[in-house]
């Protein structure tokens, strides 16, 4: 991901526009791109969603099956999330096992969903200590134009909201919707020079020095954060990111429905 070079002339152009609070695609600094969600797009999955965030596209699928609980949580279901940056999505993505960028992506999305308690894992117990529902969420980048974090979050959350526990398939009673309690939403800001912008596209992401992803719950409380990138952020910048995460998170939550 870091191998790509953005030309000097493009960098200068983006930074010059930002001085006037403008961006190449006409957005303001705190505007997010258009979101479209196609939930339930894959019938073979127990829950799925294909999400477009501008030109960035991510698909997430949920598979649910009976399995053995962890010994320390004998009456809780298991939630596992993975992400792959496949070569289809961008010329800089290579095939092979997930690298550090993919692992970070999966873990940041996982943290927001897990810590918000979105999936009520207590309700996923079939027989205490013996059998619980295991819920696997797999995310694939399909088209990469920046901000995979928020696109993947929306895809995973939408897929989980559409998910059905396939109890009949495994002879465990009737199918029922996956118990979800809330809608965690992440909002990612990046720093370019001394400007903070929301929902960066590819070029903006490439020339940014630092990134901050903030996940909020329905009440606007903070559930997960991750700073990335080689640069730093000040406390004032952090404060601005938090304000925007609450405000824009609310708007995205309404789009998810």
């Amino acid at each position, binding site marked *: 991901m870091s191998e790509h070079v953005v030309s000097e002339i493009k960098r200068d152009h983006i930074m010059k526009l930002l001085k006037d609070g403008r961006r190449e695609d006409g957005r303001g600094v705190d505007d997010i791109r258009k979101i479209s969600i196609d939930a339930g797009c894959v019938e073979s999955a127990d829950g799925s969603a294909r999400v477009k965030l501008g030109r960035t596209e991510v698909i997430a699928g949920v598979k649910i099956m009976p399995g053995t609980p962890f010994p320390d949580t004998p009456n809780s279901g298991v939630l596992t999330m993975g992400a792959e940056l496949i070569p289809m999505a961008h010329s800089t993505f290579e095939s092979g096992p997930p690298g550090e960028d993919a692992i970070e992506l999966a873990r940041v999305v996982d943290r927001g969903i897990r810590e918000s308690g979105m999936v009520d894992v207590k309700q996923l117990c079939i027989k205490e200590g013996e059998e619980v529902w295991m819920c696997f969420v797999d995310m694939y980048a399909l088209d990469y134009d920046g901000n995979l974090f928020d696109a993947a979050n929306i895809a995973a959350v939408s897929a989980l909201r559409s998910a059905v526990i396939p109890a009949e398939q495994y002879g465990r009673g009737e199918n029922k919707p996956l118990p979800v309690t809330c809608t965690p939403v992440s909002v990612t800001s990046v720093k370019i020079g001394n400007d903070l912008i929301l929902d960066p596209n590819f070029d903006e992401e490439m020339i940014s020095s630092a990134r901050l992803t903030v996940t909020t719950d329905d009440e606007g409380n*903070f559930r997960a954060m991750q700073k*990335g990138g080689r640069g730093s952020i000040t406390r004032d910048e952090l404060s601005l990111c938090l304000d925007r995460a609450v405000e824009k998170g609310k708007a995205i939550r309404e789009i998810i429905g």
Partner: protein
Amino acid sequence: MSGQTDMVLVDKKGMRIDGRKADEHRPVHIEAGVLSNADGSAYLEIGKNKVLAAVYGPRECHPRHLQDPTKAIIQCKYNMQAFSVSDRKRPGPDRRSVEISKIIAEALEKVVLTELYPRASIDVYIEILQANAGTRCAGLTAASVALADAGIPMRDIVPAVAAGKADGHVLLDLNKEEDNFGQADVPLAIVPSTDEIVLLQMDGNMTREEFDKAIDLAFGACHEIYEKQKTALKERYAVTKEDEEDE
């Protein structure tokens, strides 16, 4: 972060189970230059955490396709030793350690003058000998000292510490019980001379007010730990009058 517990972690007087107040970090001990082969090294204890950090480089970058013609790259390997936690940890990198290695390397890139060493690699190895919550911060704090011990030019040294929430209280530097049965964890690392944030994560559940309070506590503690880092380096390199007379 399980979040749900009846466990009392802070008593009525505001005292924590290990006898600390809410705004106290665990005792910190740092020693610089503890290994002979590495170019720089440091040993750090914070509470029951025991951490070793070693630095090799700047040296030739392997694999070579990672070379950057404009600057050195920092490669970090954070590793928990198999016996460092109560259940044996399966050796080798897992997803958690890959993520931690990445964010620690990124935090260090802000302070190391990497532009002085094009095409080179600066390799940072962090081994957790004993873990008791807060190992990524302990590892980064130790790694900064090891980099300075290696004589690598830096803008500043990075201290790191976590704040969090347990038993409904905002607490500094959570121990294992507070981390396991608490409601939130916020690891933070800063550049002390400018107060810039170079590492920040959060998980759990916090209001804006609680989060701001946690950040305040962590900033204060980072500055205290920074003093310990400098002391460790001074102890390693200070020349006393008797030393000079011996020569």
